[in-house]
């Protein structure tokens, strides 16, 4: 509730509700973006208020849906763009980019579970 109040116009705080952030990443995991890192990604993405998208070429999928992420078939070396819209877009993109660029899924589960 507090954050909603802060975001309202006229209280002197910057309006960050519609802020946008994006970052290009390259998949480092030799196994590619398979279900386990995908699951870590969607769980973390779902913690943010911002919408999260992953863009691959001309395709754009919901970063909070594991089914969507699985459709990317992103192997090692694939370049993707993470895009977030919302009040916590900047931090969301930073945290989520780190997940995609981690080489080992065991490292991810240690850090994020």
């Amino acid at each position, binding site marked *: 509730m507090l954050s909603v109040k802060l975001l309202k116009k006229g209280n002197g705080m910057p309006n960050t509700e519609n802020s946008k952030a994006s970052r290009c990443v390259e998949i480092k995991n030799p196994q590619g973006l*398979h279900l386990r890192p995908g699951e870590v990604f969607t769980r973390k993405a779902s913690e943010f208020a911002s919408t999260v998208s992953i863009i691959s070429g001309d395709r754009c999928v919901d970063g909070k849906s594991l089914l969507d992420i*699985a459709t990317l078939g992103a192997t090692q070396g694939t370049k993707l763009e993470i895009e977030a819209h919302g009040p916590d877009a900047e931090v969301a993109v930073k945290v989520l980019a780190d997940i995609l660029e981690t080489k080992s899924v065991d490292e991810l*589960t240690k850090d994020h579970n």
Partner: protein
Amino acid sequence: MKFVDFVSSTAIRPNLAAGGKEDVIREMTLALVESGDIQESEAESTIKAITKREELGSTGIGRGVAVPHTKHPSVGRLVGTVGVSVEGVDFKSLDGEKVNLFFLLISPPDRPGDHLRALENISRQLRDDTFCKFLKQSKTAEDIWQLLEEADNNQFVS
């Protein structure tokens, strides 16, 4: 990668008897033994490997779909099968929903790309409500095989 490239037609199970997670994995793996895709001597270690993978995080990816899988040295190429549970199975999916549609995959340890391409194909088709609905309604293995062939011919994904 198309469905017909990795789904073993005679291992398809349109009406899974199993009601639990491990039982589904067992029933579908044994279907691949019966179809000759896995040697009987490798069945138990394969079931164990798939179950162990599930312990790391459910492969129930949402919308009533699960993709239990493992890498296993006993297969020379990616093999898979399809199972449908009319009642649905508690698979500890991400969205908490019961799972009706199962795609079980076993891939050689050194072919991560094939696994990803199969996963990509399965998930793309399963985003289509019509495909999911028809799959859940399929009564025979032949119906499912025909549906997979239609999906391979891009009749569901635009």
